[in-house]
């Protein structure tokens, strides 16, 4: 036995490769640009008056007083703070160190406060913090469910471009079935089924027939848009009362939790679908990372032939994962018509599925991070509504672009080097 003990040379230290720091000046440059643009905005369009932030709602456990600050003064203070953060970032970069995530988050937060103070200066209405958060959560729900479906699909090796289609199909089915039966529960179930159906079609082409997954996904999206638009104008519009008027889920306030100021009413006075989302995110994480099912799903997404050689049925595993992903995305679609509004509208998902896809990448294929990324995109969408309330001097068309701009910037610039499942997008072809 002793003769077999490997000599120390045989197991060399894997850390032996020297590292040179890769300097990324992306963050400091981005900080500098944003700071400069904001300062320019303040100079070009100064605003008079105070801005009020409101934190309280009726029925809070205790009341946080409103904060009234001078608009321009606050904005200039935030510019100064942003400039400091920029300098720190440049110093870090010159010392070849990474800019920590918390600094980026802090920078974003300070900028947001300054921007809101400027926008609301002199406005008669105040900035409702509760609405800002609660609205973000609501707007991010379909994106979160879509992103979870995307994470599961890609972890199993199938790129799911058809999330948009699954959301739209879910929204339509929930409206149609929910209205016809008069039950939002049945509507939600129909949404799940239609999400699975779209996933099944994707699976047949992408897994069984090994068609390019991106093309199948895009075509499916167009197909779902066409089918739902057709049925909408032929069936739903003429019989709107019968087929396109769902009963919505009602809000359920969770005792005690819903009384916490600011976050209570925003997070814990919501409908069942949102509570379902709170549960689904950690559940998907647990299933992927800690169970046998998850290990096998990740195996077929990383190295399908290795999975095959240990007796895992690659195609069956991928199908199953894709069905589950479709069901989850379907719930997100159902949200539109059984929670958000009570009727279906043409192309009402408006690209949320593609933003969900971006959230998958921004969240580095991790369910929890992807959900947080979805929340960020939801926040960007919500900002437009909040700003129009305080009468901000920004054209609303410009604000409508915000979620998409944030998506592009997030995925292109700030995500850093991330590596997805190695075999995502590749059909498994046995030699």
């Amino acid at each position: 036995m002793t003769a077999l003990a490997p000599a120390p040379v045989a197991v060399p230290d894997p850390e032996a490769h020297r590292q040179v720091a890769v300097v990324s000046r992306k963050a400091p440059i981005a900080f500098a640009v944003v700071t400069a643009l904001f300062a320019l905005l303040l100079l070009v369009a100064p605003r008079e008056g105070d801005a009020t932030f409101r934190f309280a709602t009726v029925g809070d456990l205790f009341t946080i007083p409103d904060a009234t600050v001078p608009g321009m003064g606050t904005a200039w203070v935030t510019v100064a703070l942003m400039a400091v953060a920029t300098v720190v970032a440049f110093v870090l970069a010159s010392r070849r160190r990474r800019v920590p995530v918390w600094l980026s988050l802090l920078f974003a937060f300070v900028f947001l406060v300054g921007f809101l103070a400027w926008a609301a200066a002199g406005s008669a209405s105040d900035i409702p913090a509760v609405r800002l958060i609660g609205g973000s959560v609501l707007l991010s729900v379909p994106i979160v469910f879509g992103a979870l479906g995307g994470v599961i699909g890609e972890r199993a090796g199938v790129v799911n471009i058809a999330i948009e289609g699954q959301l739209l199909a879910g929204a339509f089915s929930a409206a149609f079935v929910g209205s016809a039966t008069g039950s939002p529960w049945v509507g939600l179930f129909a949404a799940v089924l239609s999400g699975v159906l779209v996933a099944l079609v994707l699976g047949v082409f992408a897994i069984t027939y090994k068609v390019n997954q991106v093309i199948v996904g895009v075509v499916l999206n167009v197909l779902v848009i066409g089918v739902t638009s057709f049925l909408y104008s032929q069936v739903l519009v003429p019989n709107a009362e019968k087929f396109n008027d769902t009963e919505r889920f009602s809000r359920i306030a969770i005792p005690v939790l819903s009384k916490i100021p600011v976050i209570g009413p925003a997070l814990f006075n919501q409908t069942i679908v949102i509570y379902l989302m709170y549960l689904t995110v950690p559940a998907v994480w647990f299933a992927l990372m800690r169970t046998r099912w998850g290990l096998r799903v990740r195996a077929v997404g990383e190295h399908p032939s290795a999975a095959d050689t240990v007796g895992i049925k690659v195609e069956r595993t991928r199908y199953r994962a894709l069905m589950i992903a479709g069901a989850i995305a379907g719930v997100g679609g159902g949200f539109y018509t059984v929670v958000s509004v009570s009727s279906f509208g043409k192309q009402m998902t408006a690209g949320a599925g593609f933003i969900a896809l971006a959230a998958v990448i921004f969240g580095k294929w991790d369910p929890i991070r992807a959900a947080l990324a979805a929340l960020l995109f939801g926040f960007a969408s919500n900002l437009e509504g909040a700003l129009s309330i305080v009468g901000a001097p920004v054209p609303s068309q410009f604000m409508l672009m915000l979620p998409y701009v944030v998506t592009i910037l997030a995925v292109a610039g700030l995500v850093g080097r991330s590596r997805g499942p190695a075999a995502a997008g590749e059909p498994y072809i046995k030699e």
Partner: protein
Amino acid sequence: MRLELRGITKRFGSLVANDHIDLVVEPGEIHCLLGENGAGKSTLMNVLYGLYTADEGEILLDDEVQSFSGPGDAMAAGIGMVHQHFMLIPVFTVAENVMLGHEQTRGGGRLDLEAGRAKVREIADRFGFHVDPDAVVEELPVGVQQRVEIIKALSRDAKVLVFDEPTAVLTPQETDELMAIMRQLKSEGVAIVFITHKLREVREVADRITVVRRGAIVGEASPGASDAELAALMVGRAVELTVRKDAPTYSESALVVKDLEVSDARGTVLVDDVSFTVRGGEVLVVAGVQGNGQTELAEALAGLQPNVRGSITLDGQELVGRSVRQIIDAGLGFVPEDRGVDGLVGSFTVAENLMLNRADEAPFAKLGMLQLKARDQFARDKVDEFDIRTQGIDVPAGRLSGGNQQKVVLARELSRELRLLVAAQPTRGVDVGSIEFIHKRIVETRDAGIPVIVLATELDEAVALGDRILVMYRGRVVGIVPSTTPRDVIGLMMAGIAPDDAGEAA
């Protein structure tokens, strides 16, 4: 467990990959399957492992006929396989890889990782491996990854173990350790099939040797047979195993590499402070186990690496910072490591591939138009000169055999006025017959007074072809030694031990 294959036949279209193969492996026996690349060894083993279904013939374990519909069945029956390209999931830990496919769970489908770790430790202890169950596989050296493959097979109680070309990625020392492990497995009664084309290893461990050529068994040999006998059996004719070359005559020309550093996008230094000089008229072999920076070094010489510091001068001209086109024009001939990916465009014809890097110059192009006659004439000349076996110059290069593809690459690179030749693993996946030819052409280039750099992972080739040998380990130069240096010293250098110490240790 006794393994028997009876009349196994496997066809792919008109190609007969396995032709009525009979093979018996007894428990406690190392049975060596010797044959060239493409002889059908791997196909046979994939049939055995349930990855392919045989067209004819049957597999018997302890005299019972088996039918496998997939690797799962083969494993359940007690067959394990250590694949040439490891079947490990790089981002998983050792324990996760070992348990994958037969995971133990606690309530609710939760993985019982502790059971997986325990299994890894138990087997590792039995064989004296040092493997951390929680290490991520991609961060382990290849030698250790191979042990994980072995542990994976043993964790399913494999009684028949197939090693498919296991030594290709190992240092000579790691190879010795693998041999020891194989002997221990044998003493525990495991039936071992050892697939290889390396004669030295065969003679060292094999109890029985079966030689395969062109899909059929051509004979058995005893472990006592000489290299020449085994090679002749494998190739079907007598082959010359040594490279004939005279002492170098140096020319004025020289390549000087100084303080070269290559790093990847993540900042890992892959070529670390490398300096050397190659004079015209000599072959410098860059040796080392795969993945120790040789590939990146060669690519840096060809201008293919983005993050390069230091200097590379060819006859006084600086090459660092120049484009690939400029470097080619400066007289570099480059045979890339993976001809299928970097060397050829598989769907282009032989004629097109032969002029690929000169398509924009006379006589192949005039006023932006391809001169097809010049191209075809050139191609016919080169096909004759380099003895490229093809049905015609308009056959897609991808359809040629490995050796003939490599001749196309070599013909293209050697047909220009060269001032430097860099050949990365020029004989990988090439049949023995073509190897002789390729070696001969490389030596001719050297004798023409051109500096030649050859990357080699196999010691035999390094010693045969090189005038001097530069050994790399973890991106650094361990030493530059004459090719007359004892093999075991070079072997130890490949494991990172400085030549002086290696000399003493050996």
